[in-house]
């Protein structure tokens, strides 16, 4: 029953929050209306989302987000330096393959997205069997360290969150 009304409770939650941000102020009225939309829209779009992701460890999300934000700032500075002060010839752009332990598409997507959003690395492709991620590094003299870093900092946490 609940599953029928809330096919995607997380989505409903997201939508309610988005609605609040859209109307830009919080009141009971907006909350109720946001909730109505948060229920109706997932119902309408349910056919396009056949399976439902599960979050195993919601608290880890906050930690993950903070880490990522910090990494973004740091990486930004590093990359800015690279762009401005490293000669093109002395750069070490590299491809690296990251073997994936993650299995759910959502987790893989978040990982890939995170890698892309932190300057200096761009996730470029997934293996056809979904077991590896191809990442391009702007300047990685030590590719293995990058792989280890990504698996350690991000993938481990995502595994906890999603799987």
């Amino acid at each position, binding site marked *: 029953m609940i599953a029928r009304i809330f096919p995607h409770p997380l989505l409903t939650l997201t939508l309610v929050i988005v609605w609040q941000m859209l109307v830009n102020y919080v009141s009971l009225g907006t909350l109720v209306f946001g909730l109505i939309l948060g229920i109706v829209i997932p119902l309408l779009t349910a056919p396009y989302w056949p399976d439902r992701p599960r979050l195993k460890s919601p608290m880890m999300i906050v930690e993950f987000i903070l880490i990522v934000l910090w990494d973004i700032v740091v990486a930004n500075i590093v*990359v800015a330096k690279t*762009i401005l002060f490293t000669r093109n010839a002395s750069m070490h752009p590299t491809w690296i393959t990251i073997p994936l332990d993650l299995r759910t598409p959502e987790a893989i997507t978040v990982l890939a997205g995170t890698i892309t959003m932190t300057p200096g690395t*761009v996730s470029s492709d997934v293996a056809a069997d979904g077991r590896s991620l191809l990442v391009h590094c702007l300047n990685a003299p030590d590719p293995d360290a990058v792989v280890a870093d990504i698996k350690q900092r991000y993938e481990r946490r995502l595994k906890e969150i999603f799987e």
Partner: protein
Amino acid sequence: MGLDMALWQEITVSVFLVVAGIFGLVGSFGLLKLPDPMTRLHAPTKATTLGVGGVLIASMLYFIFAKGQISFHELMITLFLFLTAPITAHFLAKANLHTNVNRADVPPPVGDRPWAGYESDDARRIAEGESTPGA
């Protein structure tokens, strides 16, 4: 512009703005300077993250300081940028892999199937026909 702001408020906003401007510019500059398409792909991430991000934070702060109203719209913008920028980059990287990159330079994935972009539709069908009998 409403200027009933304290100096520190102004300075805070200004700092975010200046940082944003610098990173934004560096991003666009990187697009010109970097040597090959794949490395150039890294540049706009700055424009998106610290560039626009800084502007959005500045805007939020400005509206809080100057008008006393909290604006969530900046957060919306951020949300959308963070959702969409990886997709764009991903697709552009795939496009580069497809056109500009020498396949020999790309390391193989760990399994026995190639990178998704390098597997033709037919090959995929055959591979999936073997692994997923139901398909």
